[in-house]
């Protein structure tokens, strides 16, 4: 269990983490979400004792990180920033870490096998690709068979295979009852990986709830309706205060139904009420689907106004990886990101 109590940290007068309190429970994957610059990495570094908080504290199973005996056997961490000497081989990197924990060299080889780096174990870590470096980081994190894992942006730069590997690994570890805290700014990745979410913005806690709850809590839930009698239904819904937006007919909608009836997106009204209105007016409905928003929508709603660099304008160069409006248009499509 990881516990942060009133953590505060500023760098040169700029507040990075602002009175942040939360608990990360074992047995599930806890996603740690926030826009770039929200203070995710700083919070993790504070938990790990790399940075010192201005006030507040963070404990691991009730102990400060610095007080842990053989810390790598309790906590495994994968930091976003590189933490391997480029001139040292992967094996020697893991070996010196193992030696500090009194772990046998056989454990190093077991980890190299696990992450698939056995063949390149004696190569300089500086020659590793991003994916290989990430695997070495995972090996270091798992070296002491820790019961608590902190992973900072673990899928950054990984290919789809690597992403899947990390995702399965995290779920597997959580299923073993371990505490897994993983930070990310990739919403879709978190939606399929995390059971619980802690969302921060500008160093402050914005949400701390299950993934389903965070998605369900957002206000922009809509209902997708397909009917041949769109004009009449639109008028009836509007009369009851609902908002109707005609949506592009998918012309068969890709599911082979061949249905050419218009599609409407209704907001401000529940699917049940839409059905009742249609029934009382004897309007035929071909489809009536409540649309769960995506985690991305929920996230953008939560963090609105707390983006470190402001919302992206269209003229800005694409260097900032803040979730921009370009990704926000997927609300009406039940994407892979919607947890149901």
């Amino acid at each position, binding site marked *: 269990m990881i516990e942060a109590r009133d953590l505060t940290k500023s760098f040169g007068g700029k507040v990075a983490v602002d009175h942040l309190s939360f608990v990360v429970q074992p047995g599930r994957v806890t996603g740690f979400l926030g826009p770039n610059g929200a203070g995710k990495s700083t919070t993790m570094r504070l938990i790990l004792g*790399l*940075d010192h908080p201005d006030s507040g504290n963070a404990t691991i199973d009730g102990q400060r990180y610095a007080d842990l005996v053989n810390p790598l056997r309790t906590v495994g961490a994968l930091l976003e920033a590189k933490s391997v000497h480029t001139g040292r081989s992967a094996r020697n990197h893991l070996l*010196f870490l193992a030696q500090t924990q009194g772990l046998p060299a056989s454990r190093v080889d077991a980890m190299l096998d696990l992450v698939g780096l056995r063949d390149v174990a004696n190569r300089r870590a500086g020659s590793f690709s991003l994916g290989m470096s990430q695997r070495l980081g995972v090996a270091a994190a798992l070296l002491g068979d820790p019961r608590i894992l902190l992973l900072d942006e673990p899928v950054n730069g990984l290919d789809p295979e690597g992403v899947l590997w990390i995702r399965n690994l995290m779920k597997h570890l959580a299923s073993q009852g371990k505490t897994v805290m993983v930070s990310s700014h990739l919403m879709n990745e978190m939606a399929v990986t995390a059971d619980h979410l802690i969302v921060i913005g500008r160093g402050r806690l914005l949400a701390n709830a299950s993934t389903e709850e965070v998605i369900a809590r957002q206000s922009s839930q809509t209902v997708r309706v397909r009917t041949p009698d769109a004009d009449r239904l639109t008028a009836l819904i509007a009369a009851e205060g609902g908002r109707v937006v005609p949506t592009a007919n998918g012309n068969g909608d890709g599911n082979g139904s061949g249905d050419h009836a218009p599609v409407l997106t209704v907001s401000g009204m529940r699917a049940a009420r839409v059905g009742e209105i249609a029934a009382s007016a004897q309007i035929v409905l071909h489809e009536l689907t409540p649309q769960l928003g995506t985690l991305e929508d929920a996230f953008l709603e939560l963090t609105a106004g707390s983006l470190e660099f402001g919302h992206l304008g269209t003229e800005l160069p694409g260097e900032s990886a803040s979730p921009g409006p370009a990704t926000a248009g997927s609300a009406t499509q039940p994407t892979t990101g919607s947890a149901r």
Partner: protein
Amino acid sequence: MSATPVTSYSAADTGQPAQGRRAGFGRDMLAEWTKIRSVRSTLWTLIIAVVVIIGFTALISWVVVANWNGPHAAARDARAISDPTSIIYGVAIYLGQLAIAVLGVLVVTTEYSTGVIRASLLAVPRRYTMLAAKVLVFTLLMLVLAEIMAFGSFFVGGAILHSHVSVSLSDHDVLRATFGAGLYLVAFGLFALAIGVLIRHTAGAISIAVGVAFVLPILAGLLPDTSFFNHLNAYLPVQAGSQVYLVRPEGAPLLSSWQGLGVLCIYVVVLLGIGAYLFDRRDA
């Protein structure tokens, strides 16, 4: 690279000892030794430096012998006769302190430049302990290498000079100066290591260490010849430390051999103390 099937992440089958045993200082030292030996660029540079320095000592000694003009000719020969050790240790000190200082800086600053400091501190979060292990391992390793450098230079140089000047470890102060040359190099290496802890950047720390070793003595030489400035000069780190490897110091030194080394060691302890305090307080 192929995906590895998720099999076992447990350490249960690797004979991992039970949790709870206090992490020992010996383990931290072993880890620091692994760190130093596993980066080829640093350790091998120094081992090559030892060989090269002994080689240069041989070369210089041979040049002196080959151009020998007798006691009344060149001042160099006069110096070789009055104090052969000054020729023998000259190279070892001048090049040796540079090589050892660079390694002393690098063992600290490369941890920062590569980011491995984060992995190190996650493994050993007790920062005073980690720094102490690093300092101790560096000291022991440098002691071995520096004494090899000092005695190697002595025996090679002494053997070559033997045809004109005889010098032996049993001569007055020679054993102390030879052993002291090694000690001086270790102390200066620690001085550079402490600078590395304070500055954390390779280029800056090496510049300061080189400045203290090579530039400060020149500047000090320009100071007026008054009692105050003579004292100031004598207590500068390199000038003070140099007393321990001089068999015949010029003039009447203000510090004895061991006092001089002691003054250098005080610099080292103070700088390491400040460095350790900041290391513990700073964000990594």
